[in-house]
Each structure stands twice: as C-alpha cells, then as structure tokens.
C-alpha cells in the first residue's frame, strides 16, 4: 500500500526544525548535522590541499625560495594536523551520523543532542587551529608534536598549545560521536535485523566506533600531559625532571596507529555496499569481510611500536611488532579477495561510485605492499623519515580511505540531495584525481629510496632529485584540478542535476526505500528485515510495522543481538543547550591554554549548560514540601 499523505504530513510537522536561524542553531536532525560536518571537512580538505600544492611548488625546483624553513614547517604541520584530525576521522563519523539511521530505517540517532554537541565542538577545534593560523600562531612541529621539541624549553609561545588543544576538541567530538553511533547500531536496529543480518557498513562503523572509544583516550591523555608540562611545570616528558620522552610516543601511537584503521575501516564499509549494489549480487563472503574487519580492529591495537622502530627499543620487541604489522595484511587481503570475487561473479555496472572502488583497490594494494616493506624493522630503519614513508601513508590514506569516500559521496549523493551527479564529469574527476595522485605520489617512493628526507624545505641541485619532484608536483596539480571538477560537479548537480527518484542504483539496503532527499522523519513506517539485502526481495512491498508515534518524537529500541522490539523511546527535541554547552567547553579549553585556573572557573558554565541540557521537562510535584505553588 502507499503511505497515507496525511500521515507523512503529520510526521513532517513532528520532526521538522523551527525555520530560520533558530532552527539552524537548535537542530538535532542527524542529516543536517552530518551535512554541515561533511561540508566543513571538505572545505578543510580543500584548504589543506592548497597547502600541499604550495609545498609542492616549493619543492619543484632545487633551492627554491618560495618558502623559508619556518613557513614550510608550518605548512606541513597545518596540512597533516588538518587532514588527520579535522578531515579524515570527522568525515567518516559524519558519514555514519548521516547514514546509520537511514540504513536502520529509524528516525534519528540514539542521542540526538549529543550529535549536535559533537559537531559544535568539532567546529571549535577547526576554529582553534585555523583562527590560530590567521593570527600567526600556527603549529610548526608536524602532526605529532614530539617532546622535548614541543616541551616548554624548546617551544615557547603558544603554537604547540594550539595544536594540543585542537586535538582535545576534536577527540571529545569524536568520542561523543562514537558512543552515539555504537549505541544507535546496537539498540536501534529494525525488527529482524539480527547481528548476522547487519550490512557491512554498519559493522564497519560499529567496530570503528569501538576502536575510537578504546584509543582516543590515549591522545587526550597525552596532549593534556603535554599542556600540563608546558603550563604547570609537570615533568612527564622532561628527562632532567625524571620524566621520559618516549612515554609521549607510546601514548601517541597507541592512539595513532588505531586511528589509521579508524579511518580505513569505515571505508571498507563504503566499498562493501558499493561493490554489492554495482555487482548486482549479494556480497561474496559477508561473514569473512565482517570477521576480517574485527581482526583488523583487534590487530590495530598491537602495532603501534612500528612507528618507533628508530628509537632504539629492544630487538625482541621490534620483532614482535614486525610480525604483528605483517599479520594485518592477511585480513586486509581477505577483504580484497571477497570484493574481487563479488565483482567477478556479478554483473558489473561501471558507474562512478564503482570506478572509485576499482581505483581504491588498485591504489590501496600498492600502499599495502609498501606497508609490508616498512613493517620490517630492519628495512624501516632505512626508510623511516624519508619520502618513501610519505608515499606509503598517502597511498593508504588517500587510496585506502579518500577514494572510497569519494565513491560513497557519489553513491549516496542522490539520496542526500534528490539529484544525480553528472556521470560524465564524474568520470573526468575520477580520472584526473586517481591519475594525478599516482603520478604525484609514486615517484616519492623512488625519491625516498634515493635518500630524500621528509620535511625538508629544499634540497641542493646536486642531489639529483629535481626531475622526480617536478613529476610529483605535476601530479599534484592534476589531482587538484580533478578535485575542483568533482566539487563543481557536486555543486552544479545540486541545482541542475537530473531528479534521482527514491532508488536510482537499485540499492540493496534500507536507505533506498524512502524519498530522496530523505524527509526529516526518514521512513514512514518501521521496516522489518529478513535478509542481508532487504530491498532485493521477490516482494514489491516493504514489510513494515505501525505503532511508533507520529504526533511526537518517538523511536523504537530493540535488543542487541536479535533486534527484538523492546520499548518505544522518546527522542530528544531540538535544543539550544548542545550549542551553549559546546561554547562553555570551548571557553574552558581556550582559557586553559593560558591559565590553569580556567579549568576550575570554566567548569561552572559547563555544569550550568549540561544541567540545562539534561533537565527533564515534566510536571512539578503536587504534594510534599517542594510542591509547586500556583
């Protein structure tokens, strides 16, 4: 049956935001929050990409004078910190905030206000770093600011503090988003979507969220310790004061290595969904792919020391971490074989999202192979801090995570906007970006083997590195042009693209069952799921349940393993308190760069804002000493 239009009107009234600015500031709609997260991250990707282009310009000729050493240090620090902390991790969470409720066929996230709070705090981190940059307080010690260089003795001023506090912002935002995503996936699945029937994307986001919960406290702890060393004269990292500089590296990489997989695992979720739809068959080896993601998630916590092979740790330890680092290639390889098997045995449709997946497989395999090389402690000692490493991590991060992200963007764009992107310009963007990327970064492997260190602002002509650097710069320019084509296509299609309809790709999962763009309430009814691909059934109709309120914000909560319906939960209405709470936290974080008293004083407005946020709106008592007086 068709859904009654009056019901949909009522649902729209119930789930819509207030109009105008107030609605913008108070919204708890997961789609709106995710959209601003994604747009902010993409804008920052553009800015950090411009920094990269500037650095490539500097390196394109020997002894170039476009940049001095200080500007170069600031450029790569800002580029790396932005790409890792403000683009890669947040954009994956943002995709989850947007997609998880849609793929579950539910109306919102488990904690709608927490989603809004997460975005506002993330924005605080963005502004901290980039307003700091505008005021010429730019971090200049790379994306992992090791002490003693970042300690009080060698880094006076506030550059290192800006970096450390930007991380605190983004990590609190990421942790809030992760709890939200994990609980939504565990407790808000539609009836019938048992754990065994969960699409790979949801598994990927669940595991990435759990990894975030277990790893990000390490970076919050270590940057807080660094700030304490700088602000209140603790000695965590000062050897002369009975501290230890390697403690910083251990804690940083205990977060830093899982982080790479926190970025990569959501990408495997995108790839699995895209491969399934565009191969027009069920994913080959669903269980294997899920188990491989779990294996990667577990092994990721046992690898961090491979970032520290050059610091002189015991040989036995190095051997262990070499073995563990190589072991992770096994589950990663299993996944790739499953995707290839799906493509091989399906009826392949080479639309743009699928092209990105093919670009991902080719590029990521190269990055994976150079990863196995650098996993060897003996070889790593030669390659570390050279351009070989720069090539390796761009291959795994750009090839392994950004290409799937671009594919995901093209795949779900019609659902988000109601319009199709141009396939023709999509192919151009794909060709320019993937071609330019490989042209830009492959020569860096060779430059590294030739001995070019990373983070040098220039080099003498006699080193013989000039030609390869010029090829790399040319590749970067081509890639950036491709990026501009991609963005232009997205913008043009937003207003002029062909109407997409509900399900332009004949997708397999629930997000394609409803209108495009998704209305504020998502689906009209609560769907029932009886397979891994609920939209690929013999039936033309979607089996669904009635009974969740339409006149007030209500969601269904189900059991963790079997998704058995348990109860109906009131879902939080729009509120200004998440923004006010984020502002209070921002004041405290920024103040604590300058004085420790900010922590104590700043706690008061935070407590007030959180109390306002969580204060339940119910009737006053009518009896007893505290009864309301008329």
């Amino acid at each position, binding site marked *: 049956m068709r859904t009654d239009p009056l019901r949909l009107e009522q649902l729209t009234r119930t789930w819509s935001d207030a109009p105008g600015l107030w609605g913008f500031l108070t919204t708890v709609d997961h789609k709106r929050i995710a959209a601003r997260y994604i747009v902010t991250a993409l804008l920052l990707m553009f800015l950090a990409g411009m920094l990269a282009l500037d650095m490539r310009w500097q390196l394109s000729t020997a002894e170039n004078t476009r940049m001095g050493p200080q500007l170069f240090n600031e450029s790569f620090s800002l580029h790396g910190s932005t790409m890792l902390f403000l683009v890669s991790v947040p954009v994956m969470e943002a995709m989850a905030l947007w997609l998880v409720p849609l793929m579950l066929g539910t109306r919102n996230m488990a904690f709608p206000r927490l989603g809004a709070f997460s975005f506002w705090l993330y924005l605080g981190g963005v502004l901290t770093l980039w307003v700091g940059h505008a005021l010429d307080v730019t971090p200049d010690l790379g994306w992992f600011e090791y002490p003693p260089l970042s300690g009080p003795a060698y880094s006076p001023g506030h550059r290192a503090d800006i970096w450390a506090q930007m991380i605190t912002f983004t990590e609190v935002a990421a942790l809030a988003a992760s709890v939200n995503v994990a609980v939504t996936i565990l407790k808000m699945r539609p009836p019938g979507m048992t754990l065994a029937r969960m699409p790979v994307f949801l598994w990927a986001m669940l595991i990435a969220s759990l990894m975030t919960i277990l790893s990000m406290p390490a970076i919050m702890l270590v940057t807080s*310790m660094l700030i304490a060393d700088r602000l209140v004269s603790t000695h965590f990292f000062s050897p002369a004061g009975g501290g230890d500089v390697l403690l910083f590296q251990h804690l940083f990489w205990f977060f830093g290595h899982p982080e790479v997989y926190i970025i990569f695992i959501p990408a495997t979720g995108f790839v699995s969904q895209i491969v399934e739809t565009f191969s027009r068959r069920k994913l080959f080896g669903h269980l294997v792919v899920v188990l491989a993601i779990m294996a990667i998630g577990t092994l990721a916590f046992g690898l961090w020391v491979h970032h520290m092979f050059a610091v002189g740790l015991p040989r036995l330890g190095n051997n262990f971490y070499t073995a563990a680092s190589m072991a992770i290639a096994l589950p990663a390889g299993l996944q790739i074989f499953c995707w290839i098997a799906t493509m091989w045995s399906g009826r392949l449709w080479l639309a743009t999202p699928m092209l990105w997946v093919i670009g991902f497989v080719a590029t990521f395999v190269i990055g994976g192979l150079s990863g196995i090389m650098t996993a060897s402690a003996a070889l790593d000692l030669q390659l570390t801090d050279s351009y070989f490493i720069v090539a390796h991590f761009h291959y795994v991060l750009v090839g392994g995570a950004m290409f799937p992200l671009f594919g995901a963007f093209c795949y779900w764009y019609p659902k988000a906007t109601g319009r199709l992107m141009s396939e023709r310009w999509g192919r151009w963007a794909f060709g320019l970006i993937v071609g330019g990327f490989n042209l830009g970064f492959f020569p860096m492997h060779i430059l590294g083997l030739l001995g070019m260190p990373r983070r040098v602002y220039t080099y003498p002509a006699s080193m013989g590195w000039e030609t390869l650097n010029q090829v790399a710069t040319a590749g970067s320019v081509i890639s950036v042009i491709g990026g501009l084509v991609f963005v232009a296509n997205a913008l043009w299609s937003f207003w002029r693209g062909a109407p997409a309809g509900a399900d332009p790709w004949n997708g397999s999962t629930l997000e394609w069952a409803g209108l495009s763009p998704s209305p504020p309430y998502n689906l009209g*009814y609560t769907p029932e799921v009886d397979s891994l691909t609920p939209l690929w059934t013999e039936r033309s109709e979607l089996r669904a349940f009635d009974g969740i309120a339409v006149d007030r914000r209500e969601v269904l909560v189900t059991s963790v393993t079997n998704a058995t319906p348990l109860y109906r939960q009131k879902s939080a209405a729009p509120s200004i308190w998440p923004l006010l709470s984020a502002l209070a936290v921002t004041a405290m974080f920024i103040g604590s760069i300058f004085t420790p008293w900010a922590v104590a004083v700043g706690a008061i407005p935070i407590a007030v804002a959180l109390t306002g946020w969580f204060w339940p709106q119910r009737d006053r008592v009518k009896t007893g000493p505290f009864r309301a007086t008329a």
Partner: protein
Amino acid sequence: MKEPRPVEIVGDLSGLPESAAGSNHLVWWGNIGFMTIEGTGFALAVAAYLYLATQMPAWPPAGHAPPDLFWSAIFTVGLLLSAVPNVWVLRCAQAKDARGVRIGTSLMSIVGAVLLVPRAFEFMHLNANWYDDGYGSVLWLLMVLHTSHVVTDLGDTVVQAVWLWTHEIGDDQFADVEDNANYWTFVVLTWLPIAAVIHGLPRLLG
C-alpha cells in the same frame, strides 16, 4: 526506482511500553560507552605510571616518601561503604520507589560531599608535588583524574536530587537514577587499582 517502496503493514508496535530499565534502556548503553572511555583513560594513566616506574633507578625517586596511608585509608573505607546506600538507591530506582530515590540521591549527595574531606587531606599527604619530578606528576595525574570523577558524579547526584524532589518522576527518570548509581559504582571500582598502584608500588620497590 523512482517512487518510495510501498509498504505492507505486518504488525503494530503501539503496545510496547514507553520505557525500560537496566540494559534494555538506551541510555544505559550510553553510560557504558562513557565509562569505557573513562576506564580506558584510567588504565592508560596507570600504564604511564608503571612505565615511568620502570624507567627510573628508584621508585619513588630519592627524597620522596610514599603517600601517607592514613587519610587514603579513610577515603577508601568511606568510598567502599558508600556502595551500600548506592546499591539501595539502585534498588529503589528499579522498584520505581519515588520516596526512596528522593531520599537516596540526597543521602548520596551528602556522602559524596563528605568524602571530599578525606580526599583533600589525601592530596596534602601525597609527599610529592606535581612539579617536583615525573613521579610527582604522574601521582597527581592519577589523583586528579579520579577526584574529577568523584566531583562530577557528586554534581550530577545533587542536580538529580533537586530535580527528583521538585518534579513528578517518570520511568525515564528512574532509569536515570539507575545510571547515576551505576556510575558511582564505576567511581568506587576504579579507585581500587589506582590506590593499589600509588600506595603499593612505592612500598614494594622503595
């Protein structure tokens, strides 16, 4: 496909309850999530303590006595005893006993505030300052981390008590009381390994 999928209604969920208790409730899982984050933070801070202990020739370094036991013992015993009223509040919340949770959260507010007294004396008898050396820094780190949790939960309990005395309590608020009681249990349990490390290790190695 251009149009949204037509639907076939196969059941009605309107008979389901409007709230739940314990692990059935959505917020219970959020609470677990944040406890896991903070528990990981505690574990890593303890790891940092142990790491620094292995790097130094003496632990505590020369010139420091281990933290005094007296006030710490009072705090620890008080904290363990606070588990008794805390479990009572939890039971009242599960039984949806409005009077019980009002009295219980008020009692727990007083207990939390009283516990801050021996905690303050504990800080004064650590026998090290945070700015002395790495040992002092990491000792204060663990103490400040734990104390911040005591204070946070105390604040939460006070606000909850005020709300409960002044409002009609619904099922969701009973679930909130349950979550707050669980959080206090977390604060009690995390203290035990921290106390064991900061008191035990200097005496074991010293």
